[in-house]
């Protein structure tokens, strides 16, 4: 459930009006707003936030691996509005079996390399990405280094 104080914040309120099922959780902690979005709605939500809420700038896309708990992965988006000088963090949770989410490259061009990096280091697939290939590791590399079950030494 979304905590009451989060549901009343303008971004969360606007989103729940747009799509009541999109936001499944949220928190306001240390002055930062986080909304957890259903993975299958992420692209729609991002389009809405960019068009209606002024989040024209995508600062970052990254992921966190919560191995061995499930859902294992969190994909994290940091949005910024130059107009209101505010940040918003979106999160989607993905299970290990279905580590796939829609790409937001159609919304922000910047997502292109960010998503490639997440794919490279976590092995999360981005559906609809124009060319999802490794970006930091060599092309023929095995495994995804930022996963928690990838050891820091002695992998090979």
């Amino acid at each position: 459930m979304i905590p009451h104080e989060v549901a009343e914040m303008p971004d969360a309120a606007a989103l729940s009006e747009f799509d009541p099922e999109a936001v499944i959780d949220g928190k306001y902690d240390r002055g930062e707003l986080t909304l957890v979005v259903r993975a299958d709605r992420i692209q729609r939500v991002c389009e809405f936030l960019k068009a209606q809420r002024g989040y024209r700038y995508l600062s970052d896309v990254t992921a966190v691996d919560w191995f061995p708990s499930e859902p294992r992965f969190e994909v994290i988006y940091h949005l910024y509005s130059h107009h209101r000088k505010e940040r918003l963090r979106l999160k989607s949770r993905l299970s290990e079996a279905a580590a796939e989410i829609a790409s937001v490259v159609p919304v922000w061009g910047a997502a292109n390399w960010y998503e490639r990096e997440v794919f490279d280091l976590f092995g999360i697939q981005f559906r609809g990405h124009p060319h999802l290939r490794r970006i930091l590791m060599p092309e023929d590399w095995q495994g995804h280094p930022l996963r928690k079950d990838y050891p820091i030494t002695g992998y090979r």
Partner: protein
Amino acid sequence: MPELAIPPDARTLVLNMGPQHPSTHGVLRLVLELDGETIVRATPDIGYLHTGIEKSCESMTFHQAITLTDRIDYLCPLTNNLCYVLAVEKLLGLEVPPRAQWMRVMLNELTRIASHLVWLGTHAIDIGAMSVFLYCFREREEILNIFETASGQRMMTSYFRVGGLALEPPRDIFPRIENFLKSFPARLQEYEDLLTRNRIWIGRTRGVGILSAEDALDLGVSGPTLRASGIDWDLRRDNPYSSYEKFSFQVPVSTDGDVYARYLLRIAEMRESLKIIRQAIDGLPEGPVQAHAPGVVMPEREKMKTQMEALIYHFKIVTEGFRVPPGEVYQAVESPRGEMGYYVVSDGTSRPYRVKVRSPSFANLQALPKLAEGRLLSDLVACIGTIDIVLGEIDR
């Protein structure tokens, strides 16, 4: 291989540039598709300097990881230190004493000048103005000496610690900074005399590498590259951190969006940084440089010799580190290249669960094809120089 679509009539030539090319500022590889001398497509290929810093951070204590942040962007180590410790301080809910905050601002602005000097020198030498390079490095040396006075290190400073500074700054750092403030405006004028109205410089930079505001925002560009395209956004002013709200300074903005505009803008930024350093020295508050947070901040050496508590805290911090309450924060600062952000996740232990570095050059480099495509091959060198990339922070 980067995506290459060679047209069926194969009139274009594919040329590999880098990774060992003197004007790529590190190890950047570009795959160029050329039609004669015109660039049809430029595809950056990165990762040659990937050292897994984010992964290494997860196996270190919060305190140890500070040393890794220096190595991310080796032209502005103090900005990285600042961004990381601000993020950890936010997780801890720690208030830093004013003197430490002002020192952080002062040293950060010196870092900005040092970084812009390297940019100016290398950018100019790429286009053929050799002497500027020699002058810039002369002045940068003075700044590195100041860093050495403060931290004992010229580049890998690790001077900012969680809760404040590593040490009270030595007294002779202030006359050194005063000297620099006295001499630098004239030196800056020297560079301008060499370049600003130089016909060759103008010919090589004006109208070259144009980036529209629309494209810049879409591609996540930040810093001087974004401001030269007409977007007035500076984190120091818009989301102030470390007491920046108490300083008065201008944010230069230009609407031309070309290489020349970015040159003028960074020169103007150096002048503004001087103003901030001046204010920081004049109004530097007295007091401690470390927060009162036993168990997080290293105890003083003297106390360790006389007090049992201090000795225990020291032992605990060094052997197992300090615990950080669970949570996640994203802290962004204005680095010389743009929005530098640290996303730090803690699971309640003494080691970060995840550290993600949002490096400005990574996003800015995505805009390079927009700058270079359709231009001549010789303009490419100016386009690479103007976005001021540091491969260390792109590849991390």
